[in-house]
Every structure is written in C-alpha cells, then in structure tokens.
C-alpha cells in the first residue's frame, strides 16, 4: 500500500532523510518512531506530496507522490502535528468546508460530517466553535477532518502528543476502529511504548536513517537481544568477575556501586547457565535479577548508536 524507496531529503548540506526505505502492506498500522528531528515529519510530508524529496521514491497505492499528486491527495488523509483551525467556524462547518474541498457532493456532506462526528464521539459538539475546543477535542476534530473523503491511507503525525492518558486510550480505540474499516495507517511518535500496543509494524528512525523496521515483535526482539543482569554477591566480587568475563554468552561486565552489571546475548536459559556457573564456582550469589530494560532502553540504544 505504501512503499518508500531510498528516500533522501537534503536541506542545505544537512541530510534530513538518508536513504530511508520501508513498506507498509494494506490494513496495517505502522508506527514511525524516532526522537524529535529524526525525519518523521519530513517523511510524512513527502508522503503527503507536500514536499519534494531530493532523491528516492515514494508510492501510495502504486501512485508516485511526486508525479500523481492529485491521485495521492485523494487517497491519503493527512493529519499534521499541529491543529490548523479557523476561528469563527463551528465544528460542523469546519468539517463541511474540508468535505467541500475534497469535492464531496453537497447532498452527502451533512451525512459525512455527522458520521465522522459520531466516529470521534463529538456529535454533541457540532455547533461549538472549533477554536474554543480543548486540545484533545481539537485533535479529534482534526482526525475527523483527515477522514472526510474516506481515504484508504491515513498519515498521522504525532496524534497522541499532548493528550492526557484517557484521551490517548480513546484515540487508540478510534484507530482500532479505523483499522477495522480497512485503512492503512502510519502514526509517528517519539514515544515507543505508545505505539507498540497499537501498531502491527514499527520503524525506528534516527538522524534521518532507518534503524530498524518490521513487525513489532521482530523489531523488539532484535533490539532487546542484548539483555542485562544485576548480580549481587556476598564476598568475593573479584572472583565473580573473573568467572563471568570469559563466558562466551557474556558481552560485557562491570562493577557499579557494589553490583555487577552483566550484558549477555541469549534467552532465560542462558541466564540460568550464568547463575549455574557462578554457584558451581562456589560464589555466594545473594541477588540475581534480569534487568527489564524494556523498550525505552532498547529505543534509546537504537537511536544513540553511532553508525559504523
């Protein structure tokens, strides 16, 4: 549905995007994660045909975004990371205006607006002024606006930023519903856990480069392959270090504040092997805890690594 090939965007002599490639099959929710300034918005703007790439290609439903701009615009619903509301317009009029811009016939527009307001749960606010709404409600109106022409693809730039947890849960439900309606969705965020529950695929971008992309489980497994242990021993710490260091599964060992931190490759069986090696050498282990670095750590690791 969405294919990005070697996308490059250069501003001056800084590469905002450096040969970014990924693919999103139809009906998937693709989470696009990276720190601020990593190139998420640039990628989404290129996909929305608002920006011309310096190099590479991007396709929405088979249409080249630099060539078939009109076709792309009818296929995508774009929600930028800002609201973009007019004053002096009610929610209903605001949506009707964009429906008219998307050339929806007049007879159908009021039904479209009502359906969308029901979808985002704002039916009772139809006659309220758009710019008087709270942040969460504006976000919902903007999502509804991106849907007025029933696009097959949704590009959502930071839709959850600045939302309270409750609004976030509601947004998640709406997105699930949209996925059920057969839409392909790209969501960007700088918070990885926010996306892992929601997305079927993720891509991690940093400094204009794609670090990892694929189904959520795969990417997480790949990122969290280097596990960590916190080990406390009663007396002979030096001896413990001597045992741990030569083990083939252990990548790195150091002593921090009386605790031994060990990084290893493998699964829980490997961890138990490490414990076995220590106890067999007669070292009294008082605490042996796998550190759940979690996604956030993995994400930080992925995005801070120097490129070799």
């Amino acid at each position, binding site marked *: 549905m969405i294919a990005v090939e070697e996308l490059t965007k250069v501003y001056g002599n800084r590469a905002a995007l450096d040969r970014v490639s990924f693919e999103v099959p139809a009906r998937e929710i693709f989470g696009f994660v990276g720190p601020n300034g990593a190139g998420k918005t640039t990628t989404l*703007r290129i996909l929305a045909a608002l*920006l*011309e790439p*310096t190099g590479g290609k991007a396709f929405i439903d088979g249409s080249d975004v630099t060539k078939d701009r009109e076709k792309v*615009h*009818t296929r995508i619903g774009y929600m930028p990371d800002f609201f973009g509301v007019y*004053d002096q317009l009610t929610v209903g009029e605001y949506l009707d*205006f964009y429906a008219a*811009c998307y*050339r929806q016939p007049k007879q159908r527009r009021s039904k479209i607006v009502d359906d969308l307001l029901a979808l985002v749960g704002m039916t009772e606010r139809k006659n309220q002024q758009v710019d008087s709404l709270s942040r969460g409600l504006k976000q919902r109106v903007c999502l509804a606006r991106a849907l007025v022409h029933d696009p097959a693809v949704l590009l959502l730039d930071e839709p959850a930023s600045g939302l309270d947890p409750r609004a976030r849960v509601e947004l998640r439900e709406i997105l699930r519903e949209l996925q059920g309606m057969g839409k392909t969705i790209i969501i960007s965020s700088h918070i990885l856990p926010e996306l892992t529950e929601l997305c079927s695929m993720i891509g991690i971008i940093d400094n204009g480069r794609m670090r990892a992309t694929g189904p959520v489980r795969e990417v997480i497994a790949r990122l969290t392959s280097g596990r960590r242990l916190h080990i406390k021993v009663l007396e002979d710490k030096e001896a413990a270090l001597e045992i741990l260091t030569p083990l083939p599964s252990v990548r790195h060992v150091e002593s921090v504040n009386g605790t031994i931190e060990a990084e290893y490759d493998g699964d829980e069986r490997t961890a138990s092997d490490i414990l076995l090696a220590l106890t067999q050498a007669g070292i009294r282990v008082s605490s042996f805890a796998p550190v759940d670095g979690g996604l956030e750590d993995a994400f930080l690791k992925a995005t801070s690594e120097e490129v070799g």
Partner: protein
Amino acid sequence: MNVATRALWNPIVAKEYRTRMRTWRSPLAITIYIVLLGGIGWAVFSALIVTSTGFGQGPGSLGQMLFTFLILFQVALLAFITPALTAGAISGERERQTLDLLFVTPIAPFSIIWGKLLASLSFVVLLLVISVPIFSLVFLFGGIELDQVVSAFLVTGVTAMTLGFIGVAFSTVLRRTLAATVASYGAAFVLLAGTLLYGALFPTEVDSNVTTQPAPPAITLVSPVIPLLTIATNLPVSGYGVRIKNVNPGGPAILNSSGAPQYCAPAPTGGVMCTSQSSSSSSFFAQNSATAIPTGLFTGWQYWQASVVMQLMISLVALLFSALMLPPVRRFRLLRRRAPAAPPA
C-alpha cells in the same frame, strides 16, 4: 457543477464569506467607510454652498466639485482598506497552519488564490455598492452624467482590484502577514501617489513650437487620480506632467487647451503645420475627444481606459506570480536546483 460555477464559487469563497462577516470588524469597517464618505461629502457640500456665489457657475459645477472630492476620497479609502483585506490572505492561512491542510486537498493552488481574491474583492464591491446612495446626491445638482459615474466607479473598482491582487501576491511571497501588509501599503502608495510623483519629477518634455497639448508620461496613468479627475471635470489634464523646453519668447507657445487633438509637424515652408484629427477617424475608444490622451503610447484613448488597461496588466502579473509562488511543490523553478549530491555515507 459546471466549470463556470466552479470558477466563481469554490469552498474557500463560502468559508471566507462566513468567517469574514461573522466578526465585528466587517460591520465596523462598513460603518466607518460610510460615515467617512458621507462626512467628506457633507463637508465639501457645506463649503461649496458658502462659497458658491464666488463660483458663479450654478449648481452644475457644484455637483462636479462634489463628485470630484467624493470619488478621490473613495479611492483613497479603498487604498487603505484593500491591502488590509488581502495582505493576510495566504500568510494568514500559513500562520494558522491551515495552508498545508488545503494543499493536501484536490483544490488547485490557483483556486485558493482565486477564492481568497474573490472573497476580498466582493467586500470591496459591497463597499462600492453601499456608497452609491451617497454618490446619487450628486445628481441633485447635476453636472455629472451617468456614464461619468459608471466609468469613475469602474476605475475605482479596478484600482481596488489591482491593490487586492498585489496584496495577495505579497501575502504569498512574504511569509508573515505583518510584512505583507506593510509591503501592500507601500505598493498602494507607489501605485496611487508614486506614479504621480514620477510625472511631476520626470515630465514629458515638449518643444515650445509644438502646439499639441502633450500628455503626461504613460506611467502616471497607472494612478487612478488623473483619470478620475478627467472623468469628473470632463477636461483634459493641463499643467501636470509636462515641461516645455526651448521657450521661444518670439513665437507663441500655443497649447491647444480644448477641442480635437491636433497633430503638428514642422512644415517644409517653415512654421508649424497642424492638422486636427477628426473624431470619426479616431479609434473606438475615443468617445470624448476632449479628454482623450493626445500623445504617447495610448494616443486617442481616454485617460481612464489607459489606466484600467495598465492596472489590469499589473493585476494579471500579480495573479500569475502568486499562482506560481504558492504551490508547495513547484512545477517550474526560477532557478534550476543542482542534481542532488550523493548523501554523506
């Protein structure tokens, strides 16, 4: 929806009308406009009544004077209002961050500009229409024909339109509304007063032995002031934009102040030979030969016609410029960008 309807009515126009007329600013602007125009009309009228015995030309000239003041004041008012209406057209959307949202719709960038212009200019038309009752007072005194009013309103409307187009062009290029507003007022000043100043500083130079009434430089006619004066007074311009060189104290420096324009050439026998141009052979435009432009680029045209044509040309340039500059991904580039360098490995 056929093509014509779509050209004249796009969603942007409807939205602009809505948001514009919902604020208190629009009724206020209309009220101030009418009060000022009515006020100047009343003031001129009172002043003329007091001194009318001095004129000794009857109510007809009074009507003419009143009309002259009103129409010039109206142009000045519109020169203040139009930039304010249009300078925020595109930059306002940009500042509100709604421009990208319009760009992702199938609406063409040209339609965005056109919709904005249409909405602003219909407000100007509204102002012109509601000023009609004030102008109709002039007919109480006479001295002004309906065709003069129509052509004066046409010139005024075209001037407002030109200023509107320029405002939108600045709004497209300069990203901030404030900058666009300042630039638009600057442009309005240049258009109305700057061109007149040019005529005063660099007038048409004529030899004293040429007896044709010369015209000021064509560029001064971009300003609607001279055309409006000729419409209102029904007299050709004199004493502006013309400098007489080689004043010969012996020979008479005859300036044909009225009547048909004459073409003069030094006669082979010496002296000057003049031929009056008959009005039947003149161009389609010259209905009133007294106020036709005697020399220069627009010879034989009415002053207001030359003004309208030049302003329309400026508008067209401004419109094309805006349409070229607005799209986020431009089809034509002013400077061809070099091929993308290989990204740093």
